[in-house]
Each structure stands twice: as structure tokens, then as C-alpha cells.
């Protein structure tokens, strides 16, 4: 077990708090990509509260680890994480989507401290993350680049161009996660444009593939620590997740890719989160 019981508990606490923040932010924003925000959250939590070498007081620190949330629409999940980490005041999230706010649906790296790439258009993150990883190599720097892609997003060909190149250039300072929540906008991924056999594809592209439960910190930790050994090939972590995780009426529901919640639904959502974390 790479995590101590205490570490595990602390991550749980963080995640619980952040899930409440995501619900609140969705209300303040008037609507958000809450399904995907909830599915990716545990990956963000373990990165930001266990492994990332970053300094929230110095977001441009040259030697920081980089994070590219390629599925940029999960901004509603990412923004509270960065606030919690100390990049800015959580109060600012009340302005999410409001006129001239630095926070919009897809976080702008030039406006939100801590965001390393302005993503949103799917398929752009992995090539950029690869560029960052190559940049570290050229400058002989030890920092890692972490990239999180969605599964529907993998329909985009540019991901595979980047995969081909990452393998060809033997890039092992790039660690990629797939938020495999099985859903996209128009339906289940396997119904709209299937990507299975997914692990086989990445192996064929020259990656070492780790398949984990994307909500299990121990499994995530083990995969990340393996990737840190820099095995000479790029590593991809296929994280099996549930869209809308923690909100019972949203879990695995296609329609909650994006949604608005009124105070009544918000109340139910908060209760569901508390239930998941045993805080009834």
C-alpha cells in the first residue's frame, strides 16, 4: 500500500470538501459540466494533495510539475481544487461564468493562477503536454508533466498523433490519465464512437498501461509511483470512473454531462456527498 491510513483519510476529507465546492460552484455558475468534474476529481486530489511538486504562491515557478487538464470542460472540478491548494481565494468562485470573471467554463491559463494550459477544445491537451515534457528534456529538468484526457475525447485523432510521438521519442516524463467514465454528450462512448479495446490500443502505440479504479487512491498512487520510476516508455493510467460520482441522481447518467441545479437539487446533491463519505 503506497498510502498510509492517515494519508488515505486526509485525501478522502479533501475530496469530500471539494465535492461540496463543486456543487456550490455549479450553482454559482448557473450550470456546469458537473458529471465530468465529479469523475475526474479523485485524480486531481491525489495529484494536488500527494504528488505534485508545485508552489501555489509561485504559480510560474520554472521547475514546477505541469498539469494539463485536456478535458478542459471539467473546469468546475479543477477550479475548486486550485483554490483549495492555495492558488487563490475560494470566494472568487462565486463569480464563475459571470461577466469578466477570470473563471469561465474552460479555465484560461492566462487568467487563473495554477492553470498550465488553456484547454477546452478536445484533443489539444496531449500534444501540448508532450511539448512540455520534451521541453523539460531539452532543458534537462526533472519535473513531470501530467495530462488528463477524457474517454470521448480520444475520438480526436490528435491524441493518437501525440501518442505515436510520445512513444517514438521515448517520453517517460509525461504521465497520462484517461478519465474513463464511459459517457459523452450524446450517449455512452461505446455506443457513439467506441474506443475499446482501449488498453490494447495504447499498448500497440508503445505505452505501458495501468488500469485502475479512478476513485481508489491506493490504486492511483501505485500507478503514479510506478510511472515515477521512468520506465523508458510513456505510461498511461486508464482510470475507471463514474460520471457524476458521489451524487446519486447523477451517477452514470448521460444527461448530467452538463447541468444546472436549483437549491432543492443542490440540497439533495450535498446530502448524497455526505452519505458517500459517511457523514450523515
Amino acid at each position, binding site marked *: 500500500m503506497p498510502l498510509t491510513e492517515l494519508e488515505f483519510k486526509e485525501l478522502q476529507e479533501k475530496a469530500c470538501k471539494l465535492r461540496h465546492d463543486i456543487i456550490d460552484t455549479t450553482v454559482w455558475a448557473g450550470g456546469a459540466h458537473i458529471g465530468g468534474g465529479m469523475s475526474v476529481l479523485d485524480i486531481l486530489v491525489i495529484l494536488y494533495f500527494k504528488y505534485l511538486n508545485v508552489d501555489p504562491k509561485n504559480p510560474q515557478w*520554472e521547475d514546477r510539475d*505541469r498539469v494539463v487538464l485536456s478535458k478542459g470542460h471539467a473546469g468546475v472540478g479543477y477550479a475548486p481544487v486550485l483554490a483549495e491548494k492555495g492558488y487563490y481565494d475560494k470566494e472568487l468562485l462565486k463569480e464563475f461564468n459571470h461577466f469578466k470573471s477570470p473563471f469561465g467554463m474552460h479555465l484560461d*491559463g*492566462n487568467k487563473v493562477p495554477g492553470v*498550465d*494550459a*488553456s484547454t*477546452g*477544445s478536445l484533443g*489539444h491537451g*496531449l*500534444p*501540448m*503536454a*508532450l*511539448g*512540455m*515534457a*520534451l*521541453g*523539460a528534456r*531539452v*532543458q534537462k529538468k526533472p519535473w513531470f*508533466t501530467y495530462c488528463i484526457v477524457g474517454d470521448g475525447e480520444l475520438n480526436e*485523432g*490528435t491524441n493518437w*498523433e*501525440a501518442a*505515436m*510521438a510520445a512513444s*517514438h*521519442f521515448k517520453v517517460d516524463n509525461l504521465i497520462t490519465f484517461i478519465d474513463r467514465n464511459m459517457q459523452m454528450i450524446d450517449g455512452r462512448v461505446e455506443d457513439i464512437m467506441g474506443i475499446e479495446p482501449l488498453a490494447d490500443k495504447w499498448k500497440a502505440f508503445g505505452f505501458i498501461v495501468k488500469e485502475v479504479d479512478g476513485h481508489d487512491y491506493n490504486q492511483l498512487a501505485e500507478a503514479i509511483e510506478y510511472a515515477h520510476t521512468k520506465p523508458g516508455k510513456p505510461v498511461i493510467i486508464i482510470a475507471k470512473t463514474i460520471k457524476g460520482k458521489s451524487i446519486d441522481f447523477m451517477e452514470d447518467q448521460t444527461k448530467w454531462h452538463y447541468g444546472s441545479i436549483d437549491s432543492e437539487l443542490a440540497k439533495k446533491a450535498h446530502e448524497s456527498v455526505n452519505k458517500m463519505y459517511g457523514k450523515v
Partner: protein
Amino acid sequence: MGHEVTGTTWTVYDSDTLTQAEIYGLVLCDLGKMNPKIVGLSADLAKSTKIGKFGEMFPERFFNVGIAEQNMFGIAAGLAKSGLIPFASTMASFAAMRSCEQVRTDICYQNLNVKIIATHSGISFGAAGTTHHCTEDIAIMRSFANMTVIVPADGIETALAVKACLDINGPVYIRIGRGFEPTFYKDENYGFQIGKGVELVQGTDVTIICTGVTVLQSVEAAKFLRENDGLSVRVINIHTIKPIDKEIIMKAVTETRRIITVEEHNVDGGLGSAVADVIASSGKGCSFIKRGVPDEYAVVGYPEDLYSYYKLDSNGIIETVREVMGKDFEEDDNWEDEV
């Protein structure tokens, strides 16, 4: 052929026998020696875009991503984010169209320090046909916020532009030809400055505003018209389409009242349209004709034949100047339809 560089002058390069792209490749090597942050990228065109020279000299700072232009520009964005200065080179059609979104969303939106050197622009790759032509790139690139768009007239201007673009901390798009374009400038001491047009020939009757390969043709046309038609023709090289030198354009409007524009680009959306924007917004009138590749896909042929066919060579420019000389400043005699 030894190429010594004294200081930062490039006239020692044998610019009469080196193509625009070859000069670019050598210049990049020199810059690479001086600045360790410069990295190069190619999409399987290292040889024809000549960035391969940089790649040979600095293999650890050069990435050939194969035939994957979108990936190349995404990687360029990531390299820039890591603190490096990427020069990414491919053919104009692929830079401006295949990777259009990466250029706009990854590079321009994030305002990254990426330099795009696009070769084989316009119809310079004549025989290759429309799939390898690009008469739309100036229109596309000037529509992106944060982008600087430069169209050098020859190898010397290319060298100057490549050096100068490092002074801009942001995206720059430089479009050059396939190669074998003749040299125009005698040396690089004419005061090249990004954003500043160059008055090459003084004149008072009419102005030719030109860019790229049409610069040499325009100067030849002006000489012919002075000697044969007794016309005083001003010639201005607008190498920077964005940000455009409004002052030099308006000076030509008020001092000559007749303007023609010439470019190796679709007649709509490029230099001519950019100049028209300036003139129309100014409230001053003048006679005006745009010359470019017409709004159609070019026929196949060697570039010299195409330039002649589309009236982008000195003969075509002479014809166009004579046409604009025959026009009134305000064409329309009907006063009833105006308020």
C-alpha cells in the same frame, strides 16, 4: 562555399544562389548558436523547408514529428510553455489550414512565443496543384488576435524577419516561397522594422503597394512605367501585413490618390483587403485596384507561368497601373443615390 558570419550580417551569404528557405535555415543555425532556448520542429519536411540544417547542428533541440502538423503545433505550444522558443516550419497550406486551430487556440489564444515559418506559400509550388498551394494564409493568420504576419520579399528580408521576430514575445507567422525566388535587396541596411512599410521608389502619380515576390516585379514595373509612360510611380513594400503600417498607406493615398495592391495570395482577405480596410476607414477616397490570385483555385504550372497568367509579374503590374491611371478618384457620376 564557406559561410562566415561577421557580426549578425547576412549579406555575406551568397543570396543570389541560396533560396529564401536555405537562407532561413542558415540564419536559424546562427540564432540557435546565440540562444540556447531556440528549438526547431518539422513535420517530415526538414529537407524542403531547410529547418533540417538547424536539426543537423542541434539534434537535441530539434523534433521531427513526422506527417502530423496538428501535433507539431501543439507540441510547439507546449515547448513554448516550458520556456523555450520554438520555430515550427511546414508548408503554408498545412500551417494555416491543417493546424489552423492549434495556431489560433494553442498558440495565439495563450499568446505563446512560437515562430511559424511557412514555406511554399501562395502558388509557388505551382506544379503541385491546389492541395499544396496556399492563397488563404494571410487572410487566416491576420484574423487571429496576438498574431504578427510577415511576408518577406526575398532571402535577405527573410533573414531580417527571422532575426527580428525574436524581439516579439508572442506568435509570429512568416510566409516564404518554395525557393528559387530572386533576391531583391542589395544588402540588409535599409532599416527593416516589423510593422514599418518600406518606400522603395518615390513617386507622385500612383502607388504600388506590394509584398513578397511581387516586390521585385513592382519595382521593375515602376522603372518601366517611368521610362515608357513618363509616370511617377511610388512603390511600397508592406512586409508586415499585421500590424499594418497605416501611416505609409495614408501618405500614399493623400499624395498620389491612386493605389494598386499586388500579392501572391487570394485577391480577397490578404494585403489588398488589409490596405482597403485602412483606406475605407480613413474617410479619404482614392482610385483602388487589388491584384492577387483571383477567387479560384490556380491552374497547374511552374510559378513563373502562373505569376504571368495571374498578372502578378511586372507585365501584369504595368497593365494594372495603366488601368488605375484611367480611373477617376471618384468613379460614380450619379449623385442622386448618395445622401
